[in-house]
């Protein structure tokens, strides 16, 4: 074992892992974090706390993670390359680890253009691939990125994102290979709706043996309505929502759409369990945390293993 991370232990014991996420509030309301975490706590092995998601200022990921940690749960901090240079990143990694956080996700971050501070200067001192390398080097060699020794280095279990759909498609497996080379331990994918394309990507991943190096959690987002499906298809960068998904939601009444969305997510997970290389699921139920438990149960992944 490289770390104390519960997620690492779940993988090591050969279980299908389940993670989900909590978006911190745009203010200081601790209750919101606790409430959201309470809704999912018994059904997941780790809880991502997003980091200024969609380039909107929120309670920091590390602060949210400490709140979740204090509830006896297992937070996964997210860190975007947009908001910090390498000094701030390493300081925060050490800080987070000192506060009991042992799992993190390295991300590029959405461009500030889309957020509530479009006049900000984005940092991008190191990219997500070099962030992975930096934090795994801190753990494995006990060195700062600048080369000096760390007294009591942080031991983070390190994740990253992958988008199996963005064009050019051939580049997508190569990009994962690059993250694997940088030392990443696990991947949470972009929300998957296009199952055929995901299967093709997974095949490319397994053909190169990358599934042996990196644990891949398939991204699941239940659709609340056909409106949401259309929005994701047309407005969210890098999303691939096939017409069948929209048609199926259109096929039921407006009141029935949420139920249909949940059903679709569960069916998807059942199918994915059979895909070689899928090591677990990352459920992104956007402002719909209350339904995560039912999805996990529906997919036959409850109770969660005690590790």
């Amino acid at each position, binding site marked *: 074992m490289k770390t104390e991370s519960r997620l690492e232990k779940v993988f090591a014991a050969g279980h299908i892992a389940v993670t989900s996420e909590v978006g911190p509030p745009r203010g200081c309301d601790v209750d919101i974090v606790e409430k959201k975490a309470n809704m999912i706590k018994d059904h997941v092995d780790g809880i991502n706390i997003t980091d200024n998601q969609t380039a909107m200022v929120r309670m920091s990921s590390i602060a949210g993670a400490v709140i979740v940690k204090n509830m006896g749960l297992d937070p996964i901090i997210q860190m975007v*390359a*947009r908001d910090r240079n*390498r000094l701030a990143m390493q300081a925060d990694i050490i800080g987070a680890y000192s506060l009991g956080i042992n799992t993190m996700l390295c991300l*590029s971050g*959405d*461009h500030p*253009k889309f957020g509530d501070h479009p006049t900000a200067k*984005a940092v*991008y*001192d*190191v*990219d*997500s*691939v*070099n962030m992975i*390398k*930096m934090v795994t080097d801190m753990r494995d060699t006990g060195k700062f*990125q600048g080369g000096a020794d760390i007294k009591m280095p942080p031991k983070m279990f390190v994740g990253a*994102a*992958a*988008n199996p759909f*963005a*064009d*050019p498609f*051939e*580049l997508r497996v*190569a*990009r994962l*290979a*690059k993250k694997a*080379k*940088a030392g990443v331990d696990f991947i949470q994918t*972009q929300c998957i709706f296009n199952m055929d394309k995901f299967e093709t990507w997974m095949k490319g991943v397994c053909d190169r043996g990358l599934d042996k190096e990196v644990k891949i959690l398939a991204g699941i987002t239940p659709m609340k309505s056909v409106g949401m499906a259309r929005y994701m298809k047309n407005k969210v*960068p*890098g999303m691939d929502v096939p017409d069948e998904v929209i048609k199926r939601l259109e096929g039921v009444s407006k009141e029935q759409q949420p139920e249909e969305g949940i059903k679709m997510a569960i069916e998807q997970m059942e199918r994915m369990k059979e895909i070689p290389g899928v090591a677990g699921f990352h459920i992104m139920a956007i402002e719909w945390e209350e339904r995560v438990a039912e999805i996990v149960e529906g997919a036959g992944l409850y109770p969660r293993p005690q590790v």
Partner: protein
Amino acid sequence: MITAEQKPIQEIIGYIAPYGKILLVGCNECVTVCAAGGRKEVGLLASALHLNSLKQGKTIDIKEITLERQCDPEYVEELISYINDVDAVVSMACGCGVQTIAGRYNTPVFPAVNTKFMGASKSQGIWEERCQGCGDCMLGITGGICPVARCSKSLLNGPCGGTSAGQCEIGPDTDCAWRLIWERLVELGIQDRYEELNEAKDWRPAGGAGPRRIIREDLA
């Protein structure tokens, strides 16, 4: 080259409002090529400023001159014969030109253009950013396409997850630089190169170590 665009006329009018005699100085280099501050634009701006003062019932005296290269002290020296007869200088060169004049003469200098970026002409009337002068050129390993200047996040190991239909997440009219790099590597048959890690950049040559300077002993 360095590209520039003329500032809004009201901003320029605001700068020179207190002054009656103006020296309006263009430059024959980059700003001429991108039609922002060459001889022609000097003439146009002078007419516009005259027109504006007429409308306000004032008079303004504008001396027009376009230097060979405003970022070169040798040419800026040519202003010596006019400078004592004016109250202020308006420069239509890039920021380097403006500062060369400001460093030489004890007369207020105002910029008439916004200096934009180092770019190349894509087609008639369109210029696009191509280089950020990072001081350690990577084009040799990225198929001749710059990830520093052309990726919206300057990612050395892109593309990010936001790329959509081969375009950048900031908008469909911007190519994803990493899509371009990949296609170029494929075209050259060296796509294996893609998987080599480009390590975290040393930003010192890019300006991270303070204002940059080149000293050529053989020329100095």
